[in-house]
């Protein structure tokens, strides 16, 4: 499955649409910053890519598709910027273009620069010819821009900036440098250069800006841009307002013939307009600390300069970017030349939420899925009225993905053409096939008579699976599978499962999240009850076959905490090695013979039990990952309540409580690549049963999930057990080592299991172990010492103990 989350490339066009309206003569000049979208969208895209590729790594997707833009035209020139105030790539670069190659259509390197100087790129694209004309002038003379020929393509050898105020040339590191889209080495016509100059002059950053060329002997020209930075009266207050969804004020063109009085009138009305605008505007999300920080900047600076405003803009936008408000843009600084600087931000108000279904070809179709199923997965922060946040989008993506109903999910913010500064959140979904069926087969050769394989010993086996998902568009599903190793003789080892899942039991609009599951199942397991203790030769194994029906309701409280309750009806059959039903365990006599008068395997004494019981399980799990180490609490309580229905009227209460605490021993800084903290794990498990207890339901001690260092059931099988464990995990080089100690005890209750299998198979009934281990990916390598015998052994285990 591929999911994409294109960020703000195309809409930035609209966002930057408020074109600069320089008011050079206004008493309150306002600076329209045309924040180039390129940098922001770029970096956010980039960051997004990284995070997405992480979060979506679990999806079976081949590739992460990012549809960069619905405007292929823009895509084609590899630029996310559109004119604006000559699209001054104000937002400094440094978003690390590498690696993102191919993203914007262009190749990585070029893409990076082209985004920085996107308009230049656009211009360059208009004259893609590599040829250029010599200036045809004597070398080393200074030429005014208007003296250049309109028909020639000039090659620019270098670009110099000259700050008239400081009377010196500024380097490329100066923030103004970003505003110029010219590139050394490229060719430009006179018109292009003039346009560049014009955009620089109108962007409001400069009081005065000039461009002149210096001829080089090789026919190229060096360009010097000399400028005087705009400055305004010093200010000590700062205000940030959200001007999204507001009509942009349309200044009345000032008539050159206005009288002074008319001019005054004009300015006053403009001023009033602006005050009204500020009042109408909504409060920004920008928090107080950032306000204070900017106020400090203003205070330190004295005069408000264009560079300072750039800095402020960068700071404000950085906050928005950091918080995930990817659509937020500083569009204007108003109220300059007063005590208060007003920063106008279009934050990206969501005006609409659209959920669309697409077919395989990307056409919009009417989906089978009920829209409410998708809607309930969306965080409310994606609803109209909220500010678009990329994290909320990612959350939505994850939530929808966890429904497992769609092959492709896109969460797409799109500019709202009808509402300036508004964002329409588009969710595009491609549905998975509703019905699937799968057959996998395998042939196995079993030794025939005399150990030689014959034609008849070739057995066809395999699995037949069918799935009917998303029934009625409400995510209900029916899944069935049948597995056998021999289709000719399936009764031997037929494993089947049929499950119906019915989510949103209380209605799809009800916030409570209860799911009904009904399943038919069977299983075959080796009983750990019939296992020998140390020094006991092989105990003949007992297989426990279960087949039955289960119906339960799961109530999800959080992603991890849930409450499940339901009814189980099952038939339990106990079989010996040769698959014959047996009523008693076997034991090996001292003489070497086998007697089949061991502990009874079933309650009924026939080898077949049928019973119905209620099962409830409540899991509280607030564990979370701190740099990859699991920290938190997990408590599980499970009770099986017999109803007295079945063979011998089984009436019992079988319960177990597990309490696990993962204690973080050191506070660490959270973040990718940071070291996880050392963790102490404390674990206890109590199991008990009152009433009828057949051997297959007895609690066994020993094994990788009970007391490590022993075999499954090696310590005993009892009516009540208590297991205690402690493990200390020390992070080391991206993984961790651990030391543990565990104890399991039957609390003297082994004799309360009919036939006392613990004693019959000569088990201790209790035991401890300790050891050390190393986590290697999914595998644990551990050396565990069995305290009963005092010997140690090395184990390799899959998965986690706790």
């Amino acid at each position: 499955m591929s999911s994409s989350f294109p960020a703000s490339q195309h809409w930035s066009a609209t966002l930057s649409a408020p074109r600069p309206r320089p008011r050079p003569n206004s008493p309150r000049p306002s600076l329209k910053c045309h924040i180039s979208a390129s940098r922001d969208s770029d970096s956010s895209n980039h960051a997004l890519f990284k995070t997405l590729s992480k979060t979506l790594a679990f999806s079976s997707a081949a590739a992460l598709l990012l549809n960069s833009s619905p405007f292929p035209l823009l895509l084609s020139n590899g630029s996310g910027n559109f004119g604006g105030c000559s699209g001054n790539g104000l937002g400094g670069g440094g978003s690390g273009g590498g690696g993102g190659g191919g993203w914007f259509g262009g190749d990585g390197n070029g893409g990076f620069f082209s985004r920085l100087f996107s308009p230049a790129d656009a211009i360059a694209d208009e004259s893609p010819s590599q040829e250029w004309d010599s200036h045809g002038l004597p070398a080393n003379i200074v030429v005014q821009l208007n003296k250049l020929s309109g028909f020639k393509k000039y090659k620019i050898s270098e670009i110099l900036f000259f700050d008239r105020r400081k009377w010196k040339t500024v380097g490329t590191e100066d923030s103004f440098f970003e505003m110029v889209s010219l590139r050394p080495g490229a060719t430009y016509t006179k018109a292009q250069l003039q346009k560049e100059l014009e955009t620089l002059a109108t962007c409001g950053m400069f009081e005065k800006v000039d461009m002149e060329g210096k001829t080089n002997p090789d026919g190229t020209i060096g360009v010097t841009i000399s400028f005087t930075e705009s400055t305004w009266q010093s200010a000590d207050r700062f205000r940030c307002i959200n001007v999204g969804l507001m009509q942009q004020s349309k200044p009345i063109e000032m008539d050159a013939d206005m009288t002074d009085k008319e001019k005054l009138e004009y300015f006053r009305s403009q001023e009033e307009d602006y005050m009204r605008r500020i009042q109408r505007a909504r409060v920004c999300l920008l928090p107080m600390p950032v306000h204070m920080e900017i106020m400090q900047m203003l205070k330190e600076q004295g005069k408000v300069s264009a560079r300072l405003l750039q800095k402020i803009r960068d700071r404000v936008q950085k906050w928005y970017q950091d918080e995930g408000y990817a659509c937020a843009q500083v569009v204007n600084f108003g109220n300059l030349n007063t005590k208060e600087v007003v920063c106008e931000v279009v934050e990206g108000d969501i005006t609409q939420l659209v959920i669309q279904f697409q077919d395989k070809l990307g056409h919009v179709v009417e989906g089978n899925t009920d829209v409410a199923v998708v809607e309930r997965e969306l965080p409310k922060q994606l609803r109209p009225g909220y500010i678009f946040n990329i994290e909320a989008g990612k959350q939505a993506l994850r939530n929808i993905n966890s429904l497992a109903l769609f092959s492709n999910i896109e969460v797409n913010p799109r500019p709202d053409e009808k509402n300036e500064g508004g964002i329409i959140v588009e969710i595009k979904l491609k549905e998975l096939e509703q019905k699937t069926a799968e057959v996998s087969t395998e042939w196995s050769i079993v030794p025939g008579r005399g150990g030689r394989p014959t034609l008849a010993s070739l057995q066809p086996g395999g699995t037949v699976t069918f799935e009917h998902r998303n029934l009625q568009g409400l995510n209900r599903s029916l899944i069935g599978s049948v597995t056998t190793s021999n289709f000719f003789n399936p009764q031997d080892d037929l494993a089947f499962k049929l499950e119906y899942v019915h989510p949103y039991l209380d209605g799809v609009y009800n916030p409570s999240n209860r799911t009904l599951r009904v399943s038919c199942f069977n299983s075959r397991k080796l009983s750990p009850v019939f296992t020998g203790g140390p020094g006991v030769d092989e105990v003949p194994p007992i297989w426990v076959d279960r087949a039955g029906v289960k119906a339960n309701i799961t109530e999800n409280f959080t992603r991890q905490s849930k409450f499940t309750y339901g009814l189980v009806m099952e038939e339990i059959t106990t079989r010996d090695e040769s698959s014959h039903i047996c009523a008693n365990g076997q034991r090996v006599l001292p003489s070497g013979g086998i007697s089949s008068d061991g502990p009874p395997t079933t309650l009924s004494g026939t080898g077949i039990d049928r019973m119905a019981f209620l099962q409830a399980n409540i899991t509280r799990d607030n564990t979370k990952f701190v740099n990859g180490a699991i920290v938190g609490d997990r408590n599980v309580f499970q009770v099986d309540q017999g109803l007295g229905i079945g063979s011998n009227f089984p009436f019992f209460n079988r319960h177990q409580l597990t309490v696990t605490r993962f204690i973080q021993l050191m506070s660490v800084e959270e973040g990718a690549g940071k070291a996880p903290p050392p963790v102490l794990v404390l674990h206890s498990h109590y199991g008990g049963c009152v009433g009828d207890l057949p051997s297959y339901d007895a609690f066994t001690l020993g094994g990788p999930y009970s007391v490590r260092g022993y075999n499954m059931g090696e310590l005993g099988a009892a009516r009540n057990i208590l297991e205690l464990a402690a493990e200390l995990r020390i992070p080391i080089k991206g993984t961790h080592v651990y030391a543990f100690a565990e104890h399991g005890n039957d609390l003297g209750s082994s004799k309360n299991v009919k036939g006392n299998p613990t004693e019959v198979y000569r088990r201790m009934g209790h035991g401890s172990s300790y050891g050390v281990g190393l986590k290697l990916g999914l595998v644990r390598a551990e050396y565990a010492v069995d305290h009963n015998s005092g010997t140690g052994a090395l184990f390799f285990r899959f998965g986690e103990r706790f």
Partner: protein
Amino acid sequence: MASQVREWAGINTFAPATQTKLLELLGKLKQENVNTLTILVMGKGGVGKSSTVNSITGERVVTISPFQSEGPRPVMVSRSRAGFTLNIIDTPGLIEGGYINDLALDIIKRFLLNKTIDVLLYVDRLDAYRVDNLDKLVAKAITDTFGKRIWDKAVIALSHAQFSPPDGLPYDEFFSKRSEALLKVIRSGARLKKDEASAIPVVLVENSGRCNKNENDEKVLPDGTAWIPKLVGTITQVTLNGSESIHVDQKLIEGPNPNQTGKLWIPLIFALQYLLVIKPIRGFIKKDVANESRPSWETHESD
């Protein structure tokens, strides 16, 4: 069954003095209306259980297998004399490879079904210097099988009585030390009270054919007492000591059914589990939900 009971011919092999004493004791039992006496002989392997049975009956009724564990089956020897029936049940050793042979125990239990045990003759050797965990296990196994009350009917027989204690220890002192130690371990294995254990009589037995005899041709112990009459006397005493004989029925063999214990409480347990476990955990979950740290974008309130 009674028809199959053979006449106790072996009694004639005893010395006349012994015979007289035995008949005297039997008469005493008959006086008390005891017509049958069932003796259960138990103990570890190789301590002389079968020999003791042979000695008491005066016949070679049980094969003795000194070097291997006895046949896995118990044997009952029944002899009648003058309307009085003596049943002696010889059992296989209870220890097998350092563990209680629960198979043997099981067979013994089933063998004893519907029989009444009047006396438990627990046999061990006198010439063992120390007691160990195995003795305790045997005592425990016997108690677990027949209940604590069996020890009211117990007689401890120490075989190989014709033995000289080491280091010149006086015979009496060794005997009392040995029986004291054995009683102590039985007490702990059977979880008896101190006075219950000390009430168990200990007698000495010497099954060897080279056993010393006195002038009346009776087999005697190093201290000069004739042991067969003494043993039978003690058995008679215990029989008549007022405690109930142990009747072995199905219930005793299977022990209390653990599946029935506490069954009545289940509805209450279930209710308490709901109130005291499930509800608090739900409370914890609610608390977790409330305390969950949310990303900042979720907490920023939009206007």
